[in-house]
């Protein structure tokens, strides 16, 4: 093995651009899940919301001929999917895990079914959306092209993480959200509706998951294929749980997953072939190791996955 091959421009370019492409959907989804978990709603159906977002986003981009409108459609798809969570789990207080699994299975089936009925014969692809090249920075060797000449939604995505982090920690809205997950009774006593707070949190989660799905279909893949999220939603749930309310960590987590999802392809460019099965395992093994090492420090909102009933202990 020639180690200098690892340091070629092609390798870094492929690794960074691939990792960004793979990480962004997970970043959006885990950011959404973090908000929802902080508000006390464990959203197991995240993968389903991403699939709805991907399907709606792909259709939007295909028929409206704009990646931006497509991403908006993706948000719409995710919000629609999260409405089922809002109605069934937040309003009707049904079991969040049962409904989440239902949403996940339903989304897998329905998007595949609709896709099959709609595009059974032809497999349309989207043209590559235009990218925003930042002057000077995008001319940097190796990393320039892949880091600073990307679809603008990438920058918006990272900005959103900081915005949400600031909102959760520094604004009264954020305080309400965290109270809804920690001690909903106290929030209720303070005169703020727990149901309404959780509703907005879940809708935000749906919007972000839908955006992630839309990004996956429109920008990363350029088409919709059934089951295309391939566990990204579950990875996002894990990242959200591990961040323990410090949402800035979602960036680290999703980039870690992004790198391990693409390192096999990048290494092939450098002439090293590792079986994909090994590489795909890496992020999950990392998480398990982290859990084993830091298990004692893991922390979840105490009212997570518990429906709030006024007056009930």
């Amino acid at each position, binding site marked *: 093995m020639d180690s200098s091959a690892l340091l070629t421009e092609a390798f870094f370019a492929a690794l960074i651009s691939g990792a960004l492409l793979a990480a962004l959907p997970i970043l959006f989804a885990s950011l959404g899940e973090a908000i929802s978990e902080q508000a006390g709603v464990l959203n*197991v159906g995240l993968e389903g919301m991403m699939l709805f977002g991907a399907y709606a986003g792909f259709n939007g981009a295909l028929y409206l001929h704009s990646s931006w409108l497509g991403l908006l459609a993706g948000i719409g798809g995710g919000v629609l999917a999260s409405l*089922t969570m809002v109605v*069934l789990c937040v309003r*009707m*207080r*049904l*079991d969040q*895990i*049962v*409904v989440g*699994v*239902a*949403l*996940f*299975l*339903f*989304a*897998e*089936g*329905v998007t*595949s*079914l*609709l*896709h*099959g*009925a709609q595009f*059974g014969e032809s497999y349309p692809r989207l043209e590559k959306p235009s990218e925003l090249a930042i002057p000077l920075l995008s001319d940097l060797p190796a990393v320039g092209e892949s880091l600073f000449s990307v679809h603008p939604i990438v920058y918006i995505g990272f900005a959103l993480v900081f915005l949400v982090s600031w909102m959760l920690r520094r604004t009264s809205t954020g305080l309400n959200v965290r109270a809804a997950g920690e001690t909903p009774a106290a929030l209720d006593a303070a005169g703020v509706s727990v149901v309404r707070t959780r509703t907005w949190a879940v809708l935000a989660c749906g919007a972000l998951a839908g955006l992630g799905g839309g990004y996956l279909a429109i920008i990363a893949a350029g088409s919709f294929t*059934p089951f295309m999220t391939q*566990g990204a939603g*579950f990875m996002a*749930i*894990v990242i959200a*749980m591990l961040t323990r309310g410090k949402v800035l960590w979602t960036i680290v987590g999703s980039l870690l997953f992004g790198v391990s999802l693409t390192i096999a392809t990048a290494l092939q460019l450098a002439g090293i072939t590792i*079986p994909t*099965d*090994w590489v*795909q*395992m890496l992020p*999950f*093994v990392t*998480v*398990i190791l982290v*859990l*084993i090492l830091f*298990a*004692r420090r*893991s922390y*979840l909102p105490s009212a997570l*996955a*518990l429906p709030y009933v006024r007056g009930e202990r």
Partner: protein
Amino acid sequence: MTEIAVARPVAEVPRRTLRGLLEPVVMSVTPVLLAIVAGGILLTILGRDPLSFYGDILQQGMLESFGLQQSVVRMATLLMIAAGLIVAFRANLWNLGLDGQFLLAAAFVAGLAPSIVSSLGMTVGLTLCFVIAAVVGAVWTLVPAGLKARFGVNEIITTLMMNFIGINLANILVKGPFLTDAPGVPRTDILPLAERLPVLFDTRIHIGILIAAATILLVHLVMTRTPLGLRLRVLGANPRAAVHFGLRTKRLTLVAFMVSGALIGMSGAVSMLGDWGSFRADWNPGYGFLVVPLVFLARLNALATVAFVALFAVIQIGGEYATREADLPNDFVLVLVGLILFFMAITEFMRVRRERRLAFVTAGLASRLRRGGDDG
């Protein structure tokens, strides 16, 4: 934590009355019917005839002899998985890593079975394969179980992680040490037909269904008639109460997880030794998430699960044909299962709300109202 997952220790409805017997049946059948209707509406929107679609499912999955045999064969695997799930869910442990446990055990069995069976003979060899599968499945739950018991780490996350690792590891095994020398798709050595689980009479149905039936019966008896079953249910209903009872909750958590994993691993053995005879690389039927709703529909009652697994096997086998006829992807089954879960949650909500409303009268009057006022 939940109305559905938690076994109610106090029977609110008297079991002996006709109403008390009928209510669980109605509660379980209603969501299935609603899901079938909603699925039919979706089919109509897609421009397909729902009646002929469902007719195809029934015809191919149940009424044709070949389809019926296939459905029974499929039932064997699914029943074993259901048995494993019931043990974990009764203890309120969310073992969602079942695909990983299933596939990893299946990979080990498929890889080792040809040499084991040919050197040890059918009876000993096949039995040993089941033991291997059980051990692999149980070992794969050790990390989530240990983390849950020791540090209270949420088992949904850990089992899901181990799930993905298990699926990949199974493929690594199949493409590596267990890879066959024969040309073609990467797979394990094929177990000759004569060395697989023996078939019953002149059918394609193998004795896996008998093993599964015995297992589910055993699980039912253990969960309802033995101290261990009671302990697990107490742990599931209220972990704090379990501690005050003096139960060793950590050990119980480990036991429930490992038994659950062992049974799910054994379903992988049934699938490999009976149905397929070989593990093809990247094979993942995704049974896990499909069985979860069935177990809930049966309200974690092992015997009731049999009926739902039978129904589901028919839908799956018949659905393969029906979706092909209707020129749709095979994933319609997923839609049905998702819908069933939704409607199940909603029906449960209606029941609880009705009981809550009654409860606001007074306890005695409420029970009289519930019985229809005939024998208050």
